[in-house]
């Protein structure tokens, strides 16, 4: 009898396996990885306490549990709203976010900051807000194609978000770059959110115009230039990037928008010449701006960044205000960490200015060593690879371009931040995704994660073409 019951049970299972079993396996994999990610985060917190205080206390336990609950909440949300979503994105975001909090907390302990003054506490609150935003996005955006309807609204919204900090009332000037707004106690960098709205706009716009952009145009000097009416919105974006660099004094964000734009337009049109021209314009523009900066005092900061990059160890550059002191201290920190790192809480990352935001990667590199830094870079690489995988698999062009845009923006931002710290390129003042202290960046990256999860779910559910 027992035998027959079991047989019957297995029989029912078998009949539903093709539909249910696959996603459940994905979500179970995600759950396993998420538990692992959360364990790493908790271990990092504990090691920070041991390294700095020599004992464990429960000061962050409540927050840790709250975050765990939220991350698992997102997991549950996925089980219901996007069961076929990619299983790696959420654990990677969780582990990076947690390591970031641990390192910020470590700097807070050195500063003896607590309560709302502690960047780690603010970061935890922001993480909660960010994960809730991600859940909301997953619940509201049931199909990514609905975003295509808001292409031009997204474009307009991008402009508003980018230029809002220039408004006199809510714009604040923070560390010389005018990219912040203040609402009540919260500082917010709307330009971070503009990464997403721009990605949506680029994807939507280029899906409509890619044919005409790719096919129609005037040939000049062996390069096909698009028609003016196709070019219009693109020119607006290009001007916007320039304006960001010029008026908001934010080289990194300007670079990020422009790079995003180049990558998406290249994938959409296949015009290698445009991509190369864009890169040439970027590099040429950078040197032109460097030269111009002797004429335009507004751009003096760009020239300084270049000098810091090329001659960081010169005593003059090291000593001057806005000089290479921070860059060099970051390098010292990384070198001090060496291959294995000093151990969490046992290095001196706090010597480097803004060790918890712009230079958090130098802090982590010092305490976790080259091994830790490689692990972080590896996690970013997998994150971007998952995004591109969605792009490869996506059958609809909008989804493809959106996935590429979102993935590339994370990749480029990682490169620009860590490249600046490791002297691959000049320092530009962006924040490392998920790691660095900063609410707007967290919200933006968690929303990007949510959109990628949504896209991956749709991609798996679409009817596969025989290939």
């Amino acid at each position, binding site marked *: 009898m027992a035998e027959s019951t079991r047989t019957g049970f297995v029989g029912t299972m078998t009949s539903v396996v093709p539909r249910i079993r696959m996603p459940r396996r994905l979500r179970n994999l995600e759950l396993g990885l998420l538990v692992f990610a959360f364990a790493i985060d908790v271990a990092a917190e504990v090691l920070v306490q041991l390294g700095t205080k020599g004992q464990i206390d429960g000061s962050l336990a409540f927050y840790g549990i709250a975050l765990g609950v939220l991350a698992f909440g997102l997991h549950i949300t996925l089980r219901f709203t996007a069961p076929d979503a990619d299983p790696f994105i959420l654990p990677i975001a969780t582990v990076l976010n947690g390591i970031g909090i641990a390192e910020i907390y470590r700097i807070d302990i050195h500063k003896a900051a607590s309560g709302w003054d502690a960047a780690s506490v603010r970061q935890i609150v922001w993480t909660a807000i960010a994960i809730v935003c991600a859940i909301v996005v997953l619940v509201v955006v049931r199909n990514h194609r609905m975003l295509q309807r808001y292409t031009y609204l997204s474009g307009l919204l991008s402009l508003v978000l980018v230029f809002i900090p220039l408004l006199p009332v809510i714009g604040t000037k923070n560390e010389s770059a005018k990219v912040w707004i203040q609402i009540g106690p919260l500082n917010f960098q709307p330009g971070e959110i503009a990464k997403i709205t721009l990605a949506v706009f680029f994807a939507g716009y280029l899906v409509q115009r890619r044919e005409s952009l790719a096919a129609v145009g005037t040939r000049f000097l062996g390069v096909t230039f698009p028609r003016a009416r196709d070019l219009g919105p693109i020119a607006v974006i290009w001007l916007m990037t320039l304006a960001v660099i010029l008026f908001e004094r934010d080289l990194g964000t300007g670079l990020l928008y422009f790079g995003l734009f180049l990558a998406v337009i290249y994938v959409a049109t296949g015009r290698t010449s445009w991509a190369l021209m864009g890169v040439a314009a970027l590099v040429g523009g950078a040197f032109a701006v460097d030269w111009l900066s002797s004429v335009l005092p507004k751009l003096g900061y760009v020239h300084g960044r270049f000098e810091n990059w090329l001659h960081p160890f010169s005593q003059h550059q090291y000593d001057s205000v806005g000089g290479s002191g921070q860059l060099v201290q970051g*390098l010292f920190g990384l070198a001090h960490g060496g291959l294995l*790192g000093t151990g969490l809480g046992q290095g001196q990352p706090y010597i480097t200015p803004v060790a918890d935001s712009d230079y958090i990667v130098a802090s982590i590199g010092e305490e976790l060593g080259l091994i830790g830094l490689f692990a972080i870079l590896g996690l970013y690489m997998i994150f971007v690879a998952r995004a591109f995988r969605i792009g490869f698999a996506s059958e609809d062009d909008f989804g493809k371009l959106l996935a590429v845009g979102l993935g590339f923006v994370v990749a480029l931002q990682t490169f620009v931040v860590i490249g600046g710290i490791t002297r691959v390129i000049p320092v530009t003042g962006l924040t490392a995704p998920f790691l660095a202290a900063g609410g707007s960046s967290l919200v933006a990256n968690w929303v990007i994660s949510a959109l990628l999860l949504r896209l991956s779910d749709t991609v798996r559910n679409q009817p596969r073409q025989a290939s």
Partner: protein
Amino acid sequence: MNRELKRVSVVVLMMFVALFVASSAIQVGYADALGNDPRNTRAINDSYNVQRGSIIVDGKAIAESRPSDDRYKYQRVYTNGELYSSVTGYLSSVTGAATGIESAMNQELSGTSASDFFTRLKNTFTGKHPQGNSVELTIDPVAQRAAFEALGNLQGSVVVEEVKTGRILAMVSKPDYDPNQLAVHDYSAYLKAYQQLESQDGSPLVNKAITDLNPPGSTFKPVVTSAALSSGKYTKDSTFPNPSSYQLPGTSTVIHNDTGAACSGGSKGKVSIEMAQIWSCNIPFAELGLKVGSDAIKKQAEAYGWGHQFEIPMTVSTSQYPGYDDPAEVAQSAFGQQSDRATALQICMDSAAIANGGVVMEPNLVESVITPDLQKQQQFSPTEYGRATSESVAKTVTQMMVRGVNEGTGTNARINGVSVAGKTGTAQNGEGDPYTLWFTGFAPADNPDIAISVVVEDGGGLGQSGTGNSVAAPIARTVLEAVLNE
């Protein structure tokens, strides 16, 4: 579009590769260079958190780090600081400056040497606070104290070496200082003490035994004798004209023996090499030097270790016999004048080599390095530097040095019941300047155990009236007696 996406993926991959390469270069490739940048305070700050290892003499710590509750966590304490100051040097917490063993063995003491890699690795995982290794010295406290007390308030140094191994048993430099006053954690107190010591007469912060280069005077004669005997052209009985004054070739300069007369022990206007050394006569050595030649003397001196930079592990000034073309200079260089310059350690090594049958041992101060869990990480083993002379030449020179103490210029070094080999030196520094007074030797001469050199700078306060025998030889005798009676 997938073709383009593939290319974008390659670009992204290259961006990441650039980051991997750059971070590896910084954290591994250039890590040491960045760590040594004087603007990098991390290593210094770190050293405050490490319980630095002790410096040990005969099982007792002469320098140790004790917990302290200010920002440095540990206070360096020197026991009998003055006695050992020339060996330990000092470590200043407030500036990170260090000298002596504190500097030369810093990596071991702070636990940052390459041998400590796995310990550090283990600490990384266990979260254990790092601790430095202890350094045990070869110093013999009896010899050190005897030398310290015998030298008294004279400016100069004493080195005692074990002839068969090159172990340094005593190394004293005067004036001494108390390293504790430089280890203070209060910056202004440190600065005051440092400036006071810097401006004090006789440069107490300098370890004269390995730093100061003095004209060796007659202590160089055994080297020239070795060169002569080794050439095979001379024996100890080879004779040279024995005038009471001698005009240097090609000059109007006239030199004399210390006595102002012809060399004692000569007969019929001739004097042997043996007698010239026993009575430390300059004129026969000038003649001998000219015969043997500057090149042979230089080669012999270098076989004794001259011209080589030793590390014990502190870096020792290189003793110089530069080699000369002008015959007048060659003649003077043969009795340790001209540009001949030597450290007390080198002169001690000369004697030790003669005592050791002609074999020069590498001098060394560190007996072992002991990890915090009492494992011996490094153990000293005697190392030969090279052979300076044949055993028979060494034996002949020994006999001359024994007679020099028994009946010649070194009588103040005689010890009842023990045969002492020795050579005095009274070196001129310049017109009217105080002499440098030397004694070097070893005992017991028939079965050599320890070699010594004593150098008294600034004429021992006697201007030009002191001699090696009157000032330096008694100091050597006191120290030799103390060590032999142990």
